[in-house]
């Protein structure tokens, strides 16, 4: 399974030290992503943006938050939550 930024409309983001703020310009919704969600979404929006697979997301979060020891299931749950919010879509 892999994910990418949605193609329906532009997604804007800005990284603050405590969290990533994301604006979905199509749905006009704003989201605040701290901790693991920030690291997960950070993978999708780090240039060059494109399609990324679950292991990539998992590795990035493990590096960003070494103490959290996230499982792949944890990451999958975050990816699905981001998908529901319209911030990512399945590729």
């Amino acid at each position, binding site marked *: 399974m892999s994910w990418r930024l949605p193609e329906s409309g*532009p997604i*804007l983001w*800005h990284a*603050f*030290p*405590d*969290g*990533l*703020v994301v*604006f979905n*310009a199509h749905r*006009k919704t*704003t989201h*605040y992503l*701290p901790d693991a969600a920030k690291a997960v979404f950070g993978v999708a929006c780090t240039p060059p943006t494109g399609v990324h697979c679950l292991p990539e997301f998992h590795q990035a979060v493990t590096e960003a938050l070494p103490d959290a020891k996230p499982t792949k299931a944890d990451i999958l749950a975050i990816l699905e939550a981001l998908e529901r919010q319209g911030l990512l879509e399945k590729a």
Partner: protein
Amino acid sequence: MTLVDLPSSELLSRAREYGLVFQAGRFNIRLHTRIPAVLKSLQLMYADQNLVDEPFADFTVRVTRGSGIRCCYHPQSVFSLNGARPFAPLPLAHAFPLLEWGLNWCVSQHCHQYLVIHAAVVEKHGRALILPGLPGSGKSTLSAALTGRGGWRLLSDELTLIDPKTGCVHANPRPISLKNASIERIRSYLPQAVLSPPVHDTVKGTVAHLRPPRESVLAQTNDAIPGAIVFPRFEKGAKLQLSEIGQGDTFMRMADNAFNYSILGAVAFRALTTLVEKSLCREFVYGGDLDSALECMESLVQQ
């Protein structure tokens, strides 16, 4: 010529006939009204503002007496902007606060050249201190104290105007709205202050307005660079406490406090990220001690 220079009979006849045109902060207002009490408070509160000779006004507003049988025994006042009536009629005695709320509505609903945030804003050493907060958070009391004694310049006590092109905060100084206990608090803290006659039993309780300092009015065309965003919280008797909060968190709270965030969309998102990026972000709990509150705010803009 300023409002205070105009004889009150001339004020009345202008407002009655072709409209009294004056500067209310950065906007020109043409006011039509036949209610003498409105003009009396207006002259007191906008004393230092200029009368305008230009034929173009930004907003042509009316404060009229309500019509209908009910109004014979309960006189009412109505605010309108070109036929739009954003508020239900209020008792005639509330006519001046009604005008003030109406002028706030004009700005918050029609000025999408700005990102309009529900926050007080003051300036010192060229840096803007933005004070968002719910009613009751004490942002008006705090801005009254800061501008009345702390040497700060009032930009607005209610609506912060961010120019998305430059990132600067634009000034729109108008009377500061004080409620309930803070009216007496400010009267004793600032003995020189000019207040409008208190109006009782409004939806916000007792309301009185405070005339902005003359220096703030004279400097109303000067913009300010963002310096700090402070979320005040008044808790009676609480110990003074200034604590750092996350910028991402601040961003979300500011977006919640913006009137036209969803109208400006991506423009608002970018303006707000830039604003927060440039600002110190703090939460501020204060009790009754305004002197130490002032010291605390001063520390945020000292170079």
